[in-house]
């Protein structure tokens, strides 16, 4: 069996497609994609923050302080258009679309008077908010915030009020949130749903190509029949193939995690990324080991399932058709664990894949119930064993092996 394992592994290592999906994708390509997206997003945010904003103001004389405040802002440019005060909302929209200006402020005609009376003056801000990196609202709000504060202070003085009384007036009863979850639980809850999902999908994708190659691939190339005629039992052949698929699936996750750790350390030490700092403060090495332990039977389940489908298929095309349902049926239980209100309990502990997903979430949150972990590990291992048993039965059936 060891000889078959070694040979299968050697063949996979020499296969460019396996190398791409198992090694390059998790270690270089994925971090490069994530890093690239983060870099581009950052650039776009900065650009949006520094972008020149051309604007018009309707009824400028109504609130000159507002116009002055905006003009003082860096990269704000007041422009003029014909019949500025006559423009309708539709015409403003069209002008923004035509890039005549980026935004328009419509000041209330009686704005100054309202402020003098201590009332609220509502300004309309017309802009295109469809862009994800749009900063117009924040930048205009920030420009007007100073004015708001000055007006507020003058009103407080006028009515002889202090800030505490103002709070009592605007919100007599307020609720202060006291979170009993510690920092780790909080962070764990935020990222705990994504981690198992990403890891399990990685196992599946990492194991998929080797499974296809070693089952139906061998059938198509005519090497399976040769292998079946050696004095090695079919059970041993199945186990060897199973272990190779298991190893590659697991290796993909290992490399991804290792790569994430390394890239995170780089991000932490070189770029001092705050989110990474928070993450490394709460997740210990033992947690990572525990996550790996829980993922082992999952890798075994996927390896058995994929090998079964691959052995059964007549050709590569048919095998690929089986991969989509396997992917779908694997994702659904994982998605259950993301649903609101789904918590790890004695019922969910018996639902395959959902249980591991929930267990990983608990590990990340630091609220591990070791008894429950034991049950999940055991039930998942039993399921993997049953699937492997059926895989072996199939591999011993002539009707499956020589299906043509």
């Amino acid at each position: 069996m060891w000889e078959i394992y070694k040979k299968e592994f050697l063949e996979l290592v020499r296969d460019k497609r396996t190398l791409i999906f198992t090694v390059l994708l998790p270690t270089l390509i994925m971090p490069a994609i994530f890093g690239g997206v983060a870099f581009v997003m950052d650039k776009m945010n900065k650009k949006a923050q520094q972008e020149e904003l051309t604007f018009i103001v309707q009824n400028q004389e109504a609130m000159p302080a507002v116009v002055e405040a905006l003009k003082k802002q860096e990269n704000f440019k007041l422009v003029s258009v014909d019949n500025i005060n006559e423009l309708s909302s539709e015409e403003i929209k069209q002008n923004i679309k035509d890039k005549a200006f980026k935004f328009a402020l419509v000041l209330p005609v009686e704005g100054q008077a309202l402020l003098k009376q201590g009332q609220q003056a509502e300004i309309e801000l017309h802009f295109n908010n469809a862009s994800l990196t749009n900063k117009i609202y924040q930048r205009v709000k920030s420009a007007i915030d100073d004015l708001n504060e000055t007006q507020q202070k003058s009103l407080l003085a006028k009515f002889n009020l202090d800030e505490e009384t103002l709070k009592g007036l605007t919100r007599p009863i307020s609720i202060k949130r006291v979170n009993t979850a510690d920092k780790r639980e909080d962070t764990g809850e935020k990222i705990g749903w994504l981690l198992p999902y990403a890891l399990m999908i990685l196992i599946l994708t990492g194991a998929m190509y080797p499974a296809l190659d070693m089952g139906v691939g061998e059938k198509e190339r005519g090497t399976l029949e040769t292998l079946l005629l050696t004095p090695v039992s079919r059970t041993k052949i199945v186990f060897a193939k199973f272990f190779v698929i298991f190893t590659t699936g697991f290796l993909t996750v290992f490399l991804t995690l290792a790569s994430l750790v390394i890239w995170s350390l780089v991000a932490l030490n070189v770029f001092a990324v705050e989110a990474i700092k928070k993450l490394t403060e709460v997740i210990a090495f033992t947690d990572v080991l525990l996550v790996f332990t829980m993922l082992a039977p999952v890798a075994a389940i996927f390896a058995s399932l994929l090998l079964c489908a691959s052995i059964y298929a007549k050709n590569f095309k048919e095998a690929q058709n089986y991969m989509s349902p396997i992917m779908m049926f694997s994702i659904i239980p994982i998605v259950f664990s993301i649903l609101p209100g789904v918590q790890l309990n004695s019922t969910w502990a018996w639902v395959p894949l959902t249980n591991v997903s929930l267990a990983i979430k608990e590990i990340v949150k630091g609220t591990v119930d070791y008894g429950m972990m034991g049950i999940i590990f055991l039930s998942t291992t039993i399921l993997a064993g049953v699937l492997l048993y059926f895989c072996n039965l199939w591999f011993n059936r002539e009707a499956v092996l020589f299906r043509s």
Partner: protein
Amino acid sequence: MIEVQNLAKSFRYDKVALKERKKKSRQNIDPREDNRHFHAVRDVTFKCEPGKVLGLLGPNGAGKTTTLRMLSTALSPTKGSIFIDGTNVIDSPLTMRKQIGFLSGKTSLYRRLTVKENVAYFGKLHGLSGKALEQKIDKVFDLLDIHSFANKKAEDLSTGMQQRANIARTVIHDPKVLVLDEPTTGLDVISAKTIVDFIESYRGSNVSVIFSTHHLHEVESVCDQVTLIDKGVTQFNGDVADFRAIGNGNDLYSSFLALVDESSSQSEQSDIKQQAFVGA
């Protein structure tokens, strides 16, 4: 010596095949088919002494490949027995595989492994290791003139080189019985000659060779005996000379036609069998 007695093999139809059968009129149904099974081989008997080459003949769908797959232990017979030096292969297929070498036009090498790695792998699976394996590889490579491309990956080899490597893989464990299923099909003249020469080299040795082919000139040149099967039943067993004497033209071609039911040879290629049965 290999001895095959009353060998039979039937396959259950799958659902698709059963559906197809319902569409088919009774008249066109092959007599080997019943409601649920296709009897690919019904009664095949022959024996081959060491040092002899037996040519297994028959039209397409006669049951040659199924028979050879049973001999190689890939398929289990429904009935009958296969003896190699008195031991029933069916009772202990795992052990008996060490005595059998199988080569067909369809079997191939692991393309991402070198020739040497391929041959060594099969040697190890047959229980060879260390120096014994190295020596054996050297000997086989010398014999087949493989050394010059021993470290090339199988995918980079020409068809002829691949065939030689395949032969090396087949004989690395010194089998007592060589089973060759249409090994020259689809090969060019030079590659086919390599195979024929290889078969020829076993004449007079202690190895029995069973060789299926559609090329009667190959039978003429290398075979000592002929077994002809049609519709899964042995129609002839005997020397090449006796086989030749059956036909009017005193050649293998006319003998073949005399023994094979021509109508069956036309109908045997019906699509349903090709698609629905396992290895028929």
